[in-house]
């Protein structure tokens, strides 16, 4: 089992999101994250879907999605040849100055940003490869995470790489 990133170019019609997620659910494929928005082509949207699966399930997922009439193109993005990003907002406990100092150091090291500070908490924003975000979250857990939100993965193949 491994995380796979599928990029789907779909026609921007009402119901297409239900169709895509329904197809995966029906085939017992668990969606880790799914993002969708309009793209450079008029009338089309691009979806980025991450799933945990083995190779055979990935092949099935791609083929089943490809079968949907509104799907224009499906491609799998390989980690080594793609830029994969996730955005995370996380609020941690930060009651005294010593702890705040530590958190700022950690966040700096991960090239995140402090976007809000209150008496008892700090809120951090980071956009990065999801695995690096996982690591930052691990570090921050020690201070107590009050709230955590992630947008889900969006990804693009590197220029010249196979895929898009």
């Amino acid at each position, binding site marked *: 089992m491994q995380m796979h990133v599928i990029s789907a170019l779909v026609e921007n019609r009402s119901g297409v999101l239900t*169709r895509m997620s329904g197809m995966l659910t*029906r085939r017992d494929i668990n969606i880790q994250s799914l993002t969708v928005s309009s793209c450079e082509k008029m009338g089309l949207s691009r979806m980025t879907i991450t799933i945990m699966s083995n190779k055979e399930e990935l092949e099935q997922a791609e*083929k089943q999605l490809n079968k949907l009439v509104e799907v224009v193109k499906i491609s799998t993005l390989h980690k080594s040849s793609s830029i994969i990003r996730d955005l995370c907002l996380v609020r941690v406990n930060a009651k005294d100055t010593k702890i705040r100092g530590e958190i700022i150091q950690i966040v700096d090291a991960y090239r995140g940003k402090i976007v809000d500070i209150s008496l008892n908490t700090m809120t951090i924003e980071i956009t990065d490869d999801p695995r690096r975000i996982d690591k930052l979250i691990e570090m921050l857990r020690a201070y107590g995470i009050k709230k955590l939100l992630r947008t889900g993965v969006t990804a693009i193949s590197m220029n010249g790489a196979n895929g898009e």
Partner: protein
Amino acid sequence: MDEVSGAELVLDSLKKENVNLIFGIPGGVLLSLYDRLYDEDQVNHILFRHEQCAAHAADGYARASGKVGVCLATSGPGAMNLITGLATANIDSSPVVALTGQVSTKALGTDAFQEADTFTVTMPVTKHNFLVKDVKDLPGVVRGAFYLANTGRKGVVLVDLPMDVLEQKVRNGTTKNLNFMGYKPNLKPNGFQLKKAANALVNSERPLILAGGGVISSMATEELRAIAEHLGAGVVTTLMGKGAISEVHPLSLGMAGMHGRVPANNSIAECDVLLSVGTRFSDRTTGWRLEKFAPSAIKIDINIDPSEINKNVQVDVPVTGDAKAALGMLLEFLKDAKKKNESKEWTDRLREMHDSCTECIKGVGERNPIDPRWAVKEICGFLDNDAIVTTEVGQCQMYAAHYYTARSPRQFITSGGLGTMGFGFPAAIGAKLANPDKQVVDIAGDGSFLMTCQDLATCIENDIPVVVCILHNGHLGMIRQWQDLFYGKRYSSSNLGVTPDFVKLAEAFGAYGERIEKTSDLRGGLKNAFSSGKPAVLDIMVDEEDNVLPMIPRGGAIDKMVGVEKCRCM
């Protein structure tokens, strides 16, 4: 003014697709469309008594004719009642267009009277569906629905029609077209792959062909037969593939699978190259232990749907494309290739297997209480060679699959994938309307027939003389069989108890009814049923303790059937 309503646009679009039959039931939101149908003489509407039957009839019409079947139902309950029929057609890749009424666009999402979210609910049981919100889209959508239903891997397309869209007027010539940029029904097979397949086949000592429903839907039966004869390959079919080769052909070994013939299943275990065409390797075909399915064979798989390749069975030579085109190309490659001598051992083995099946069927004799196998054989013997047989689901379906001899495609119509009880009778109505000059018989059980028998009224009203032959055993027979064999004879809810008097039931509708209690009465009963000129029900009382054997028990491998002693096939 040159204005047309949405309802007129729908009808015009149907006429452009050469539709002359619609199966349906009206409802409030469809009144404008039915008002147009009132004056219509090119499109004939058959009024059903339950929407599920309308959908099955459209499906039966499509399977019998190869054309798209059309059904029509109102919003809410009408559309919901269609769903079993749509799922049945879609899983068996039968081309059906379903039109459903919907509440007005302004009322969508308000839980209005007779509102159900048909668009979302039908997504998983259709190939594609549309909710039309602009009257200008109607012609494009209807054209698109027929195109999608009848190309590539065929299937069901539903068009949901809100009331106000049907009533809106639009100026002629302002309608929009629709294109499907992502839909590429992959029709042209890859020559390189087919050459590889040809190479494997000519070097094979024990070639076998597994033919599925795709061979029938792409009308590839001639190509299939030519390849089998060229190679001296045996041919087994799936349930859906029954009729892909004439079952009297010496290379035909009948149906394989869970309830398949012993030789058909053994040949799968024994072959060294398996050419499968138009099948999705359902669990009912492969048995449960996939590692025992053609374990030593090079597997070639021709399928029009790329997602079916390697879904259930891992294959060595995948070919994506239409069966007719692929088999046509393959035959040319085979003719060009230097052919090795046929293995006499395999030829002899195939002949022995075919002959043993023929003997086995011959050996089923008269006894009282009536053996259901004998009953099917007798019905089959009575019918014309081009008759169409539909089936319900369960024991009656398996008896029909084995003891009715299909000589050509589209002669045997059954719910293979979904296994829908109640399918056979309404499907027979559709098949008869597609083939008014052919005999159409539904081989039913007393459990199945009660699920959709109200549409005898439709048959009477429209003069559709189909003959229902009930193999009456007082049980949900296949359930009873499993309880008998695997659940210690604990017959939980499989005994139907009091069954109705089917003769009186038929007569109450105005149909012909007759009960058959002795073998000597069956032929006369069939004569009476057909000469009555009316829809007819023959209530054939059969042995209630009979089981469909041999079979692969749950979890079993294809060549390990139980009850082998019950038949003489080798």
